[in-house]
């Protein structure tokens, strides 16, 4: 794995760690913490996908739309497309839409299912190439 790929991937790991930390907050701002955990979860997968793209095609997407196009068009990334889009949608909702809320149960589902699926596929692919 290239050094720069590793740096990008570590950014994903940091965002994942922050998401998990925020998900476990049991304070009077737990609801807001879960919203921010949702956003961090999305940015974790942004970096995981960016790490894969850099390692395999030496591309850094300019924006979300370009990244999404790569995910849809590359066979290795297509299996994670629906989980990625789900995280993107919920991340957008959490950031911008008034009224968004996420229960601890559904946040755990996002982190342990969608985020984990994407991370597993990316890690497996990156390790296979190293």
């Amino acid at each position, binding site marked *: 794995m290239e050094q720069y790929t590793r740096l990008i991937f570590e950014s994903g790991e940091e965002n994942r760690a922050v998401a998990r930390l925020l998900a476990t907050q049991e304070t009077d701002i737990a609801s807001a913490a879960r919203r921010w955990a949702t956003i961090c979860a999305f940015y974790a997968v942004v970096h995981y996908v960016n790490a894969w793209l850099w390692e395999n095609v030496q591309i850094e997407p300019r924006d979300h*739309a370009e990244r*999404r*196009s790569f995910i*849809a*068009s590359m066979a290795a990334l*297509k299996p994670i*497309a*629906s*989980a990625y*889009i*789900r995280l993107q*949608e*919920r991340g957008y*909702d959490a950031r911008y*839409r*008034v*009224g*968004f*809320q*996420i229960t601890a149960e*559904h946040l755990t*589902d*996002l982190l342990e*299912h*969608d985020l984990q699926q994407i991370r597993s596929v990316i890690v497996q692919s990156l390790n296979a190439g190293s």
Partner: protein
Amino acid sequence: MVTRTSVDIEAIARRFDRAMHGVAGVRDLWATQSDNALELWLLTDSISPDDERCLFQIGVDVMTENLPLDVNLHVLNPRFFTPETNLRRMIPADAERLPLQ
């Protein structure tokens, strides 16, 4: 000069409609089109994460069918909003409502 890509929105809606048969809780489908993207807004009942994943997978399947423009599916699931939230308000005012069976 920017030209709008011609796309049969109702054909895409029919494609979605066929694929969504068997997925519970689908209520309304709306669309807006910009120069290079079709935005689809799917309003649902309060559906489970697995049903939601199923809908996003259908979105991916349609998105990767070599259409002449990007297709972005937005699933508005009341499960992720406070009870008083009006999800219909999140759909752009100029959106076209597409028929579902």
